[in-house]
């Protein structure tokens, strides 16, 4: 029994130390919704993004925010007549909202790409796809981050 209490105390101290360590990072300015909205407006060029076509594949819960696997795909035939030209991913809760921008062409064959991203905290990720005709589609997904990847 005594051993168990000791272990709990040890865990408590550990969690406290972690909280202090994390506190150090929280002084870093985080991108607010406004910065992300501005980035969306710049990308869309005045058009209102329509939800759909874009599939944003991210884990529900990311234990380590330093490396979160992400796959983005867009439902498009990728022909000369109809294809995705650009795909922008934004993280509203990161110090800077920009994550990655993919450039596609009909030579890409399919509009799909994967990478690993950093997430500072639990937040919404936004993916925006621009088609060759100028229309913009979007998808949003929330990821719960256990340990932030904000520089730490």
């Amino acid at each position: 029994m005594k051993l168990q209490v000791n272990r709990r105390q040890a865990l408590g101290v550990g969690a406290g130390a972690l909280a202090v360590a994390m506190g150090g990072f929280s002084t870093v300015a985080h991108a607010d919704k406004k910065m992300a909205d501005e980035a969306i407006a710049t990308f869309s060029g005045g058009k209102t993004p329509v939800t759909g076509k874009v599939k944003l594949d991210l884990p529900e819960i990311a234990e380590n925010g330093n490396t979160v696997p992400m796959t983005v795909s867009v439902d498009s035939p990728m022909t000369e007549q109809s294809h995705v030209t650009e795909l922008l991913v934004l993280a509203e809760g990161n110090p800077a909202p920009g994550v990655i921008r993919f450039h596609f062409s009909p030579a890409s064959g399919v509009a799909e790409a994967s990478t690993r991203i950093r997430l500072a905290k639990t937040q919404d990720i936004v993916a925006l796809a621009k088609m060759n005709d100028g229309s913009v589609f979007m998808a949003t997904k929330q990821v719960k981050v256990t340990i932030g990847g904000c520089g730490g």
Partner: protein
Amino acid sequence: MATKPRIKLDKPQAKKGDIVEVKALVQHIMESGQRKGSDGKPIPRKILNKFVCTVNGKEVFSADFEPAISANPYIQFHFRAMESGPVVLTWTDDDGSKIVGEDKITVS
């Protein structure tokens, strides 16, 4: 410091029009510029900010990386196999240096 990137095509031989998947991994610190060193000063940003893939000299896919891309960046994408030739992947560092990796595709 630049080690050779690891590149894998899901099919090195393809029929014309096939979709080929490319997976690539490169070693890089991807220092975000947000972290502080032990002296309390911010560690300057150093990331790979641009990735381009060309097949037989024609660009098929590219990406702009931000500091939110994890260290040792992994990227996976596709291209439509139209002609045989070298598949060249180029990552550009903030300091202008380039990491280049090459594979090849045979289209029948």
